[in-house]
């Protein structure tokens, strides 16, 4: 095609030009079609994020808007020097690690059952989609009432356990409250995890598992040496999306404890600074830090699994 330039006025020139015209047109059409979506996505994320970066350098409180003053990075130093910030980050990390680990195990067990089952496939899928679809706030209320002292069933059903009595106050101290929050989170999101793992499981070839069986591998060996390594991509997608989702935990905490008993998460701290205290400067700095943490986490998880991100897909 490049010869078209060198050869003057041959028949090759118009056809090459026509082809490149088509490429140009396709290029334009493609860009035109994605433009509205890209604009909407950027307007609500990139632009406010730049705004947050700018505001985070100011002392800016909505109750005293005239006091807006440039203070450099001192919002950041204030936050990083504050033990509350670290306590909330620790809470968030604990919730993330515990919930994702438990969900991975239970989700895999559920996926195995759904994979093996030959009857009532529709019924089980319908059942599993209900927690997925249910509003998180509703799940939080349902579990708050479950753990309630005078109206819940946990205390009356499990009072035979040594550490549970008829008047155990689940929201009266730190760890029981964290436990209740995590139960709600795990209940609601395990189905999503199990569906992703089920999709991965159905891609593992039965022949390979059969071959391992013939070669004398035990069920345990088949699981660890054949099944799990072959579902790495699915596990990585599930872990990535659930971990980032768990790190953003907010709804359950807001409804169940409002951050009482030191159950506040990073998201909750950010929300409280901005909406309840009107600290836009400090809140923006927290927003930026939260955003950076999520980026770091995403990078860590993908690096851990060494899987191309293009294989992954979004879960809003």
């Amino acid at each position, binding site marked *: 095609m490049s010869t078209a330039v060198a050869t003057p006025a041959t028949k090759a020139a118009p056809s090459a030009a026509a082809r490149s015209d088509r*490429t140009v047109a396709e290029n*334009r059409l493609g*860009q035109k*079609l*994605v433009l*509205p*979506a*890209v604009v909407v*996505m950027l307007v*609500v*994320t990139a*632009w*406010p*994020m730049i*705004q947050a970066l700018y*505001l985070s350098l100011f002392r800016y409180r909505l109750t005293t808007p005239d006091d807006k003053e440039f203070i450099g990075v001192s919002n950041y130093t204030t936050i990083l020097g504050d033990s509350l910030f670290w306590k909330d980050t620790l809470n968030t990390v604990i919730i993330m690690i515990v919930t994702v680990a438990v969900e991975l195990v239970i989700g895999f067990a*559920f996926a195995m*059952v759904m994979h093996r089952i030959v009857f009532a496939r529709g*019924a*089980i*899928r319908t*059942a*599993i*989609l*209900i927690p997925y*679809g*249910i*509003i998180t*706030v*509703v799940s939080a*209320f*349902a*579990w708050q*009432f*479950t753990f*309630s002292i005078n*109206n819940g*069933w946990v205390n009356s059903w499990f009072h035979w356990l040594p550490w549970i009595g*008829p008047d155990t106050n689940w929201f009266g101290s730190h760890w029981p409250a964290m436990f209740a929050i995590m139960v709600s989170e795990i209940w609601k999101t395990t189905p999503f995890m199990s569906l*992703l793992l089920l*999709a991965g499981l159905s891609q593992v070839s039965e022949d390979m598992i059969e071959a391992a069986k013939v070669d004398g591998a035990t069920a345990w060996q088949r699981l660890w040496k054949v099944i799990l390594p072959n579902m790495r991509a*699915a596990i990585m997608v599930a872990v990535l999306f659930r971990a980032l989702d768990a790190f*953003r935990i907010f*709804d359950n905490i*807001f409804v169940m404890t409002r951050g009482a008993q030191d159950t506040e998460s990073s998201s909750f701290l950010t*929300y409280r*600074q901005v*909406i309840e205290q009107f600290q836009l400067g400090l809140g*923006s700095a927290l*927003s930026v830090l939260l*955003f950076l943490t*999520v980026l770091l986490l995403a990078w860590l998880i993908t690096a851990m699994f060494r899987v*191309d*991100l*293009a294989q*992954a*897909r*979004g*879960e*809003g």
Partner: protein
Amino acid sequence: MNRGRTILGTWAGFLVILVWCLLPVVWILSLSFKGPDETAAGSPHFLPETWTLQNYKDIFNDGDFLDALRNSFGIAIIATALSVVFATLAAYAIARLEFKGKRAVLSLALAIAMFPVVSLVGPLFDMWRTFHLFNTWPGLIIPYMSFTLPLAIWTLSAFFREIPWEMEQAAQVDGATSWQAFRKVIVPLAAPGVFTAAILTFFFAWNEFVLAISLTSTTSSRTVPAQMSFFVGPDPFNPPYGQLATASVVVTVPIILIVLLFQRKIVAGLTSGAVKG
């Protein structure tokens, strides 16, 4: 022997999954039939001692709740419709055309899917007040669109890649006009994908809470999850268990209906493209 054990295990697993998924739902359903006297006195029983419809009467006479229900439906449906239209255009381009920046669009979508929504609360709160979008429907619809677009684009482009587009030309060769070829061949093939994307988008908008409490201040735009979280009832020392449970049941009904009707499509949409490669 071994086979029998596997079947028994599968049965047990089936029951465990059913109990896991349905117990909390049955629990709020049971709670919604407990009268206010019973919950105020403390009722540790799973089922109501006396069944009553009082909570349903109260909830459907509560103007604030009805407003919130209207807002939830309106905002979720409009956001879903707009998001799916934009996502369809973008996904068509990504699946069918070669253009510069395709990878950038996909990466942007992925980045936004992981974005911490709370980070936006501050700046959006500030911006929306300036643009007079605070406490309005568009003020929630616009961010809901941007947060559902990634999921819709990924799901739809996975679906569109599977469509046999040659059939469009085949229909034209057989004498169909290009509009007929599109209308009669492509639309029926693409519709299930678009529909699936719409369901997942609707679930997101129906569920969203952080922005719903931060960017609204009255029942003119507050959605059900936000309204429920602010609902304390007349006695602050006794949360209105029954009414909250009833509200929970009411907002869960649409979800259960959608799941019952379309479970196959939802599962396909959730897992499409997740394990390719």
